[in-house]
């Protein structure tokens, strides 16, 4: 009861509310502009808040974090450039919805379920933080490999007409994720003497190239070269939106669990949730990938639920769950708040402030999503002769600003042309990005797991015989069997 009152009292503090509002507004624009990431915004805010009190800094940063994760969906839906990798899955159904004149509906779904996702995450942080952090800590190298493989096994759901083509796309993504300095020996791999490749291929330039720039090329090639604008349509009805709520709890749990795993992050959560949605909803009115609302619901609930999940290991183990929580960790350190197992005892007021800021930011998210973001949908009415050059320049600028390198602009262009050719030949692009995100994590953990197992007397026992590993293995096998079955059905 005391805890609830502590959280509620923050809502009466005008300064606190205004700071969360300012952060949320900044998050809305930063997340929606391709190339500007939430991590970048929180890092910038960190430099501004050195001299602030800890509570003020945390309030503003939580505002940016919560709304920034949602607003990546706006550009994904409207101009087919995901503001962040986690919004990619939203784009798979959001963009077709927008193209069919239902952009405002797509944004409404994204706003409502980002709101619910944030609420689930914050509630988990509030109520389940301790057992969850223990679970996250018990994940070992092989578990990360299996979790990544499980993520990749979702490729069946992202492959469209041919699973084989989806798998080719995965292989290409995995190979491309190996480019750069190896994380164990520090050896440059697959760089072919090009020094700029030592740092690897950035996810942001690849993402922008594959989806943003290739879309421009695609809309200018062949029979799709018409330059008409599209209407943004009507908002979704509340009754339609609420219909998806029961399943969103499940997607939220996926988001929280994946978010709590250090290094896993929102993109994996949204891919896993999307795969689960395809299993749960067997015969949707509109197929997945062609503009079904369930795809947006799954992705947005999971990626926003990740926020609460990622905060759990950060607050209770001092291990950041993703890049933004790593920045948040430094805010804590600057202000002498030391996260760790006794955080709740020592800094109960800071904990309640984070929960309050997260909850309040989720309310602003909903308000912005329902009243401000639909205004952005007017962008679809802009004639394509004006919109496409703008998207092109945003793509180029987004690729550059990811790490201020001209090289990344060329990487983006290469991925753009590659994405165009792949789309023309019906190779799905989403599996490639999924593999690009997961490749590094899989490689490092696979070798670490092998190394540990080889040092043990019983190789297989050391690799697989642990409860979490076995559960993940069963999930993985189940998922592969399902994919093989659906592959056979497709072949027939």
């Amino acid at each position: 009861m005391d805890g609830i009152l502590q959280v509620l009292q923050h809502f009466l503090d005008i300064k606190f509310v205004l700071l969360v509002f300012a952060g949320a507004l900044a998050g809305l624009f930063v997340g929606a502009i391709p190339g500007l990431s939430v991590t970048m915004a929180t890092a910038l805010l960190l430099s501004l808040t050195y001299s602030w009190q800890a509570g003020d800094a945390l309030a503003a940063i939580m505002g940016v974090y919560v709304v920034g994760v949602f607003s990546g969906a706006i550009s994904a839906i409207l101009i087919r450039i995901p503001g962040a990798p986690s919004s990619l899955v939203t784009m798979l159904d959001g963009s077709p919805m927008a193209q069919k004149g239902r952009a405002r509906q797509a944004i409404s779904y994204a706003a409502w379920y980002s709101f619910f996702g944030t609420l689930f995450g914050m509630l988990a942080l509030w109520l389940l933080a301790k057992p969850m952090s223990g679970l996250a800590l018990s994940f070992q190298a092989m578990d990360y490999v299996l979790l990544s493989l499980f993520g990749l096994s979702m490729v069946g759901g992202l492959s469209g007409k041919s699973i084989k083509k989806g798998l080719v796309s995965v292989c290409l993504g995995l190979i491309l994720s190996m480019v750069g300095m190896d994380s164990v020996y520090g050896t440059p791999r697959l760089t072919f003497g090009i020094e700029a490749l030592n740092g690897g291929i950035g996810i942001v330039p690849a993402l922008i190239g594959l989806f943003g720039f290739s879309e421009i090329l695609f809309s200018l090639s062949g029979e799709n070269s018409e330059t008409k604008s599209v209407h943004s349509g009507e908002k979704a009805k509340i009754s339609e939106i609420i219909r998806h709520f029961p399943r969103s709890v499940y997607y939220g749990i996926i988001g929280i669990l994946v978010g709590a795993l250090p290094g896993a992050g929102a993109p994996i959560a949204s891919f896993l949730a999307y795969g689960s949605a395809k299993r749960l909803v067997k015969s949707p009115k509109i197929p997945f990938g062609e503009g079904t609302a369930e795809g947006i619901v799954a992705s947005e609930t999971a990626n926003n639920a990740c926020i609460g999940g990622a905060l759990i290991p950060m607050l209770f183990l001092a291990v950041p769950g993703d890049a933004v929580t790593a920045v948040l960790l430094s805010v804590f350190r600057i202000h002498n708040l030391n996260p760790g197992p006794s955080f709740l005892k020592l800094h109960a007021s800071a904990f309640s402030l984070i929960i309050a800021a997260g909850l309040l930011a989720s309310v602003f998210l909903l308000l912005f999503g329902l009243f401000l973001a639909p205004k952005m949908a007017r962008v679809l009415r802009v004639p394509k002769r004006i919109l496409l050059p703008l998207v092109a320049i945003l793509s180029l600028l987004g690729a550059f600003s990811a790490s201020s390198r001209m090289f990344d602009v060329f990487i983006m262009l290469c991925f753009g042309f590659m994405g165009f050719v792949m789309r023309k030949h019906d190779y799905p692009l989403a599996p490639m990005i999924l593999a690009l995100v997961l490749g590094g994590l899989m490689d490092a953990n696979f070798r670490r797991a092998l190394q540990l197992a080889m040092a043990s007397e019983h190789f297989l026992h050391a690799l697989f015989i642990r409860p979490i590993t076995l559960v993940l293995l069963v999930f993985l096998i189940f998922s592969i069997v399902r994919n093989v079955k659906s592959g056979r059905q497709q072949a027939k």
Partner: protein
Amino acid sequence: MNGENEKNSRIKCKKAGGALLFLALSLVLAGYSFFSHISGIYKQWALSPYLFPLLASLCLFGLSLSMLFEKAQSKKKTAPFLSKRFVYVSLCSVSYALCLPLFGFVFASTLYLFFMMRSLGEKRWLFAIAFSLLCSFVLYIVFAKLFYISLPVSELDVLQKLADRLI
């Protein structure tokens, strides 16, 4: 009848072309990974940085082989691959990336936006010029001034000074 057979075999060749490309890529990568491992200091495959690329290329090899043997079933006509606009926009974009360091962000972007708009059918010259200039400046202010992202500056002193003055 003969014409249809010819068409089908052409489609099959196209499909096989893709599979052959992936097959070649996988073989090259597998060879690269294998020889890089052998010539490196790594004693065991388990620790080798080339283990994962080798595994991925073997998977690609298997997939491309299976695609190669798969019969082409689709007989639908594909849309024309390239259009004039496509080629023009591609060239414009590559030139823009190449010219950025020379002209700097503001001027290169203005030119790029202008040419793109014209190529996509914008007939109003004045509007195209004004819109290109406005967008470049707004983007420069948002990215460089608001978010402190260092955008490319012109190697030509005159242009850079002019851009600084204008902003």
